[in-house]
């Protein structure tokens, strides 16, 4: 059953138009055309026979299904294609414009999308007006993108020189790419042959890339659900506690955390987990007077020592 009555109503109105042209349509085909599951379609088909212009006069839609095919016994002309609502036009147009800005998008796809966008704007008419009030820009990591895209479609291995901010170093590795996705930045998910594990690489941190002749052979893996966020720390990871003042509140926006307690001074006490606490030395240094690492002690101490050592270079050179 559809969770949202508005979405279901909108779908049923389109369904009626669609079915009118296709007597005896197959449940599986219709579900695919509408991007819904067969169960969702069947639940729509359960509702439709209760709908019509009057429940008394018997003017109800006589639509039924045997679970395989769908029949409409009294098709009428109620069912004309409906104009797009403002939200519908906005959702589709904003998404289409955003995707056309993707660096590395194949030229054929971009041209098709530009043509479709123009036709859609014309058909949406007034409803397209509000779509200019929402916009999305994807990051440009174009050069690397094209190589990764090619490696995926040709199922080939890649060689990378990749920057790890946690250790401030470049490492060379061979990876078998699995997929490319964009959430703010563009990322590649791949099987890393160096660490023998699945890794996510941010494309703007790839310093150098080469397409290898060897075929990619990633192990069979279930794709991660990205809606949960990119970084999904595990409960076994060590805990780090950071206390920040008002100027360090951004830490809670950038780092996934277990908790962020408000402090009397307008700051936060943030508890987070990471597999490698040492990588947070950068954060401790960056925070300066806006915050400090409370635990683990060794991490706080390493940041203090790094600052001492850095200051030595400025002595007597003021």
């Amino acid at each position, binding site marked *: 059953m559809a969770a949202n*009555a*508005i979405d279901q*109503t*909108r779908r049923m*109105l389109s369904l009626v138009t*669609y079915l009118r042209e296709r007597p005896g349509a197959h449940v599986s085909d219709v579900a695919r055309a509408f991007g819904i599951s067969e169960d969702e379609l069947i639940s729509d088909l359960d*509702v*439709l026979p209760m709908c*019509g212009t009057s*429940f008394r006069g018997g003017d109800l839609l006589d639509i039924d299904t045997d679970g395989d095919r769908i029949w409409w016994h009294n098709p009428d002309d109620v069912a004309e*294609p409906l*104009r*797009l*609502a403002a939200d*519908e036009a*906005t*959702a*589709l147009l904003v*998404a289409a414009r*955003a*995707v056309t800005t993707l660096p*590395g998008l194949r030229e*054929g*796809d971009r041209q*098709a999308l530009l043509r*479709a966008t123009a*036709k*859609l704007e014309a058909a949406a008419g007034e409803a397209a007006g*509000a779509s200019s009030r*929402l916009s*999305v*820009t994807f990051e440009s990591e174009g050069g690397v993108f094209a190589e990764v895209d090619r490696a995926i479609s040709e199922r080939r291995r890649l060689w990378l020189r990749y920057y790890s901010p946690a250790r401030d*170093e470049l490492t060379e590795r061979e990876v078998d790419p699995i997929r490319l*996705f*964009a*959430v*703010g930045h563009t990322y590649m998910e791949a099987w890393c042959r160096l660490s023998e594990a699945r890794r996510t690489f941010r494309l703007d*941190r790839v*310093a150098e890339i080469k397409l290898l002749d060897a075929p990619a052979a990633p192990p069979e893996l279930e794709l991660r659900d990205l809606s949960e966020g990119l970084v999904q720390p595990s409960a076994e990871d060590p805990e780090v506690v950071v206390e920040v003042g*008002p*100027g360090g*509140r*951004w830490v809670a926006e950038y780092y996934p955390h277990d908790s962020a307690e408000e402090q009397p001074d*307008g700051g936060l006490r943030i508890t987070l987990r990471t597999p490698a606490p040492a990588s947070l030395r*950068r954060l*401790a*240094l*960056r*925070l*300066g007077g806006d915050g*400090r690492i409370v635990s683990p002690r060794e991490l*706080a101490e390493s*940041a*203090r020592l*790094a600052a001492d050592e*850095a*200051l*030595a*270079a*400025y002595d007597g050179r003021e």
Partner: protein
Amino acid sequence: MAIAKAERLMNLALCLLGTRRPLSKRELRGSIEAYLEAGTDDSFNRMFERDKEDLRELGLVIETVENLDGETGYLARRDSNRLPPITLDAEEAAALGLAAKVWQQARLAGAASGALQKLRAAGMPEAEDAYEAHHSALEPRIPVHEAAFEPLMLACRDRRPVVFDYRKANAARPEQRQVEPWTLECWRGHWYLAGWDRDRGAERVFRLSRITGRVRSRAGSFTAPVPDAVTVRETVESWAGETATRSALIRLRSGCGYPLRARAVSSRDLGDGWDELEIPYGHGLDAWLVEFGPDVVVLEPADLRADVVERLRAVAKG
């Protein structure tokens, strides 16, 4: 059991679309079973008003006409509700299908698939199965984690003033802001609002993750003119320090700080295990340089040197 809302909405839509003359509320109540079961006149009236609004949300143009007896009638004329002819080829249809998947926000995801379903009902061809093989492997996603997004999207769409509590990056307490919202823009995975700040009498850009509490609508309309082009991105770039106006000279330990090297205007090997780099100097450079600890020494300008030393001293104090 109460009749499901989707069934009620569907019936109202079919009645309004099916009629050639305006139907009064009395007539509609007599034709739709759910309304007969609504109980009192009051509860029917409330239900009817809400349902009309919901149908308008999904794009139906419902006219209100007064007849000779002064009774109000409603109808959805065919010609104002029909989708203008639109012909999309299979490539364009596939490109729109990819674009519609980018939304991770329920309302926009629903609206985007609703738009595709309407287009499908109007004859948009289905993608061939071979499509995926020769097109880009990219999966773009637009993240929306901010609770303020949906109310602000609707306020931008309807040009309604809003009020919300906003905590500036380095402020201890949130402050109430009265804003005429113009546009929302997503950049690097974060959402920003541009609008007219009524109290400050000036254009402002807000980051949605810094809005605390609920976004409330204000009665009345906009008081300031809406500009043709809004520059959200330029403002955010300058916050992020990407609009550098000066340059800085630093020493960097060999092999360290790849991102600094990637940005360097010029670089030379000093021969003693250090390199000298000239890099663009914009807002936020001091905090970034401190992250590299003892691997970076700022040579000039003096103000940047002083900022970095001050930050390092704060960390060294512990």
